[in-house]
């Protein structure tokens, strides 16, 4: 009995699926189901092989593109960005850096806290959780071009709704992926955010020290050179 179960589990979890275009498309289509039925769908995403890395990466790419599109093309009345200074690399980083930081810190912490998800599972679940950002923000950005100042709250409400929706999905995604209960997930999420801050702080500290070391080495080199 145990062997059979073990065999099936091995079959389910370990065996690599053949990745076909069809599968990726089907996975993408599944994201539309996921945003309305997160509890079931995150489970299937992990255990029924409905999610895969290429699909998650496509969603993440769309989120990045959507973000850039929003910053670039939001109606003039609502757009506070200086378009002459809009840097596409900075804009991409402002989505990707927090996202990967979330994934990595999530994995680092849940590994220690008996979470059931692998880094791959976390990546897929987190990326799929961002789907509402795409399907709300892009149409809102287009519509914002035909709105006037008095209709601005409409945009703000939708944008906030999309963010909250994604936040909730991220929460449920973490919960289902690691098979946690609500309290533990909430606690973990707080820890993850704290961890992200700590990592950022350390990164800044590291680069600052690296810079100082470089400056020191350079001045020593100069001193020797001019002596």
């Amino acid at each position, binding site marked *: 009995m145990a062997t*059979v*179960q073990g065999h*099936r589990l091995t079959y389910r979890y370990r065996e690599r699926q053949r990745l076909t275009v069809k*599968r990726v498309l089907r996975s993408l289509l599944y994201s539309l189901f996921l945003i309305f039925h997160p509890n079931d769908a995150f489970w299937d995403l992990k255990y*029924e*092989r409905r999610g895969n890395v290429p699909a998650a990466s496509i969603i993440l790419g769309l989120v990045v593109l959507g973000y850039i599109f929003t910053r670039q093309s939001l109606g003039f009345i609502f757009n506070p960005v200086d378009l002459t200074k809009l840097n596409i690399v900075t804009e991409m980083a402002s989505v990707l850096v927090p996202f990967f930081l979330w994934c990595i810190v999530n994995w680092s912490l849940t590994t220690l806290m008996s979470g059931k998800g692998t880094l791959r599972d976390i990546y897929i679940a987190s990326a799929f959780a961002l789907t509402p950002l795409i399907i709300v923000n892009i149409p809102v950005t287009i519509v914002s071009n035909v709105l006037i100042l008095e209709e601005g709250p409409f945009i703000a409400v939708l944008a906030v709704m999309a963010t909250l929706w994604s936040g909730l999905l991220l929460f449920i995604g973490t919960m289902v992926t690691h098979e946690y209960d609500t309290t533990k997930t909430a606690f973990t999420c707080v820890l993850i955010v704290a961890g992200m801050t700590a990592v950022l702080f350390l990164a800044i500290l590291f680069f600052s020290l690296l810079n100082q070391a470089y400056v020191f080495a350079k001045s020593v080199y100069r001193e020797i050179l001019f002596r």
Partner: protein
Amino acid sequence: MRPKVACITAIIIACAWVVCVPAGAVQYRNYNYDFWGEAVPSPQAYILKRVITGNDLGVGALKEPMDIFVREGLGIFLLDTGNSRIICLDEDWNVIRVINDFEREGVKEKLNRPLGLFVTAEGHIYVACQGDERVVVLDQEGRFVRQIGRPQTDIEGLIPDGFVYRPAKVVVDQARRTYVLATDQYEGLLEFDVDGNFKGFIGAPQVRPSLADYIWRKIATKRQRERMGLFLPTEFTSIDLDEIGFIYATVPPGDSGRYDAIRRLNPSGEDVLRRQGFHPPIGDVAFPPQWTRASVWGPSIFVDIAARENDVYSALDGKRGRVFTYDGQGNLLFVFGNTGDYRDAFSNPVAIDTIGREIVVLDSGAKCVKVFRPTEYANAILSAIECYGSGKYDESTRLWERVLEMDANCDLAYQGIGQSLLVQDRFREAMDYFKLGNDRVGYSEAYGHYRREVAADYFGFIVLFVFVCLLAVYLCVRYEVFSKLDRMLMDEEDQDIGYRTGPQTDIQV
């Protein structure tokens, strides 16, 4: 050969430089602030016309002059604090008389440390004398009229205990109410009625402790708290009166700046200044903060302000020697001035006033008065504002276009043209100009009108488009398009696994 070429080139460049620098050019780059708070180059707005010292006037050197006041029709009044005298001049800077002392009840008296000066339309000179705690009123010939002494009141608690009265500036409105700005006085301006009776304080600046201050206060012990400084409202630095009797007042900004460094107080003491420009009227928007190595850091500190025609006002920044001119909406029109030792810079500017469109700045450090005349650029802007205010939109547009020829960075000019086009119902063009001028509000208004026009033309298409969208959504739901798509994309391998959910289905014996 080489050195020769270099030498000739250098000479040519030197000559070209001498030729190219136009007469009246100044030593610094003029600028204005754009929508994003960045300084952008801007043409020179005001040029030094003349410098007037005490010796030029033939009254001997000035000593620590503190105030200047111009009253159209009556002349210019210069308060020479160090010499305790008032120099009365006509509008061509000829001395009419010098008031050194006056006779009060048969006794000759001098002004003791006079700091502020105001002249009413009838020609009464009000002088705030810090040394002897009073405001002296003289007539034009320098004869004593009356004086307003220390505030007296029957109301308990209105005047705080240990009150030290040190009047510094004074203004008198059309109803002949006197407002006195006193140094080290946190309750606001002192208001006196026609007869010189004290009525109360108005317009006290609000206290706004920062969050950090607040938290420190909370966690400090009682004894620590006693030793901390009190949260006192900042005092005003200077006041001026506008055409309709409202008071322009300047407030020191603190280390990090405040949005209400300039206030316009109505007779009940409320701040009614409009702050609808890109940035509130605070002088320099971008400045080095405290922790940089810049020798001059922190926000502008206004030391004096002059109300002008059409709600325009000019404020003098004592820290960097700059004069900032704003319109009635709070848009920064232009900036000029600098600190330094050359002729058109200031060493310690203390007071500002205007003669028509000319600006006079009293430089206490250089002991002289510097008169600046507007350039064509400044004149065009001021005229455009005047024309718009009096409803001459065509003329206003023409002037703003003239401004744009001189300064393509002038957002205000684009906005001005946009406003005129909006009034003429030319919405599409107005939108373009508002966009160039970064005016979101104006653009929104023009766009609202334009949208209505376009929507009326394409009403049928819009309705059709919305209908098609709704129909598409309905059909997708009705015929389960997504489920069908899903099934279509399913592989055989997937079909083998099927749709089961939950791990319990995995366990098969």
